[in-house]
């Protein structure tokens, strides 16, 4: 398979579009947790009951289309090989927990991979929608429409006082988790982000780094999401998150400007060194790759590098994850082999850009 074909398969179409504020916001995700009434939650339900849930979903929604979400396809976890499952996780289309559960779990995926509905995860239904760039309001509107469409055929567990009932008390009420993925290299470099995070937490929002083995914000990519789901309306939650994200965008842009003005050649040097590493290295670990990709993307955004497309960071962050490297190689790889494959794929991907 050629790299271009592989990229087209590996990268969801929506990821290649440029959304609002795409210089900083990579993507927006809206998630709603829902359950069938009168069926115990997946942690406690017998396999037979969960089968009823997955059968109901298959019967009513498999091969259906709704609005721009065409040809929903029900994929059962039991029917997938472990690398395929891992690749879906690396694309964030399913959670690692769904893979762990196995029992009657699956996902309903739209053809454009913008909509994924996990079945029998922690809750019976976890509806997720992805959008490029910052699109919280539009995203919520879409999610509500889809929720109504599902609810036409499903009796949801709902309580007047507590709202949508979920397996975990942290999701009850709206069942809403809205998150925004942001690339914040300048706020990280200038160590401003550490000071901003506690203030953001005070508003009931959580900031965390994503990617990598779970330590720091690898690739300077952060996820901001709401924590409170009860006692606030969905639009209030979204509004709070939106205003914080706007503030972060403003600060990041300012920090970039100051960096460019004050660091003279040092920032440019850092960017081009990273570009060199990506372009010529033969062995590269995921952490170094992420750091260099972040530098490269910053270099593109501030105008040092003009001939590369901005989608390179999003694409290569996904493509250089372990399961994708192995899918591309079409065989299992050791950690060392992966580092070699990673370097190759990055060189090839950069080679696809006209210079």
């Amino acid at each position, binding site marked *: 398979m050629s790299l271009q074909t592989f990229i087209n398969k590996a990268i969801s179409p929506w990821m290649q579009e440029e959304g609002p504020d795409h210089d900083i916001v990579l993507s927006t995700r809206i998630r709603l947790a829902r359950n069938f009434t009168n069926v115990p939650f997946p*942690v406690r339900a017998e396999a037979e009951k969960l089968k009823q849930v997955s059968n109901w979903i298959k019967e009513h929604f498999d091969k259906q289309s709704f609005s721009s979400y065409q040809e929903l396809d029900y994929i059962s976890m039991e029917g997938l090989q472990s690398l395929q499952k891992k690749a879906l996780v690396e694309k964030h289309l399913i959670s690692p927990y769904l893979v762990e559960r196995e029992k009657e779990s699956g996902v309903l995926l739209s053809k454009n991979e913008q909509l994924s509905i996990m079945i029998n995860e922690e809750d019976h239904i976890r509806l997720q929608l992805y959008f490029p760039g910052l699109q919280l309001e539009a995203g919520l509107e879409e999610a509500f429409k889809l929720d109504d469409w599902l609810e036409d055929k499903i009796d949801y567990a709902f309580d007047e006082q507590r709202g949508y009932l979920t397996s*975990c*008390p942290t999701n009850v009420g709206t069942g809403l988790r809205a998150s925004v993925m942001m690339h914040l290299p300048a706020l990280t470099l200038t160590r401003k982000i550490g000071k901003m995070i506690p203030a953001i937490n005070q508003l009931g929002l*959580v*900031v965390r780094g994503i990617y990598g083995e779970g*330590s*720091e914000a690898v690739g300077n990519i952060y996820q901001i*999401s709401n924590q409170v789901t009860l*006692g*606030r309306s969905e639009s209030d939650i979204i509004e709070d998150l939106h205003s914080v994200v706007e503030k972060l965008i403003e600060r990041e842009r300012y920090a970039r400007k100051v960096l460019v003005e004050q660091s003279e050649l040092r920032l440019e040097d850092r960017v081009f060194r990273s570009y060199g590493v990506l372009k010529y290295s033969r062995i590269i670990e995921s952490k170094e790759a992420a750091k260099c990709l972040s530098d490269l993307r910053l270099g593109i955004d501030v105008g040092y590098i003009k001939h590369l497309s901005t989608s390179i960071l999003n694409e290569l962050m996904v493509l250089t994850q372990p399961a994708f490297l192995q899918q591309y190689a079409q065989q299992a790889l050791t950690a060392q082999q992966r580092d070699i494959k990673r370097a190759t794929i990055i060189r090839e991907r950069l080679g696809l850009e006209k210079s």
Partner: protein
Amino acid sequence: MECQKCQKRQATLHLTNYINGQKTEIHVCQQCALENGYIDSEDESSYSIQDLLSGLFNFNSSFAPQAEPSQVLEKEDKCSSCNLSYHEFVKTGKFGCSHCYESFGKHLNPIFKRVHSGNMAHTGKIPKRQHDRLQQKRYINDYREQMKQLIDAEKFEEAAVVRDKIKEIEQKHASSIRKEEGE
């Protein structure tokens, strides 16, 4: 900022927690947060509910001796529908079914308050098909309250008017149920 637990990696999670009524801020790396149960691996943005619940036990025993006996946590309480015990709920931090919310009702307000910044009641979306019925219920509750006040004020004629309004809504509701069942 470096992680308070391992003092090696950078702190990427900054959590506020309330233990024994004391606000504490924790700055940790994700790995330590996972290891110490501050966050769930599957749900990225919540702190460990177990942690919150165990904190709650401390809170109840040391700071609320005046709590009524009925509010003291009875570990043997069970959900009438899925048979999950309250003890198991605290241990796993997950409800077994939607009826658990009723079964453990009396214990839940402090938990929700803690997890959701003091909130206990839903104010967001209502399922479309339940919308009309819930809306009617809200009207009826308002009218009942109004009627009570009018009776207290001995304005019986006005109270009768309100009572008729309640009847009207209830009849409409009953006929719409018959229609649904007839389908």
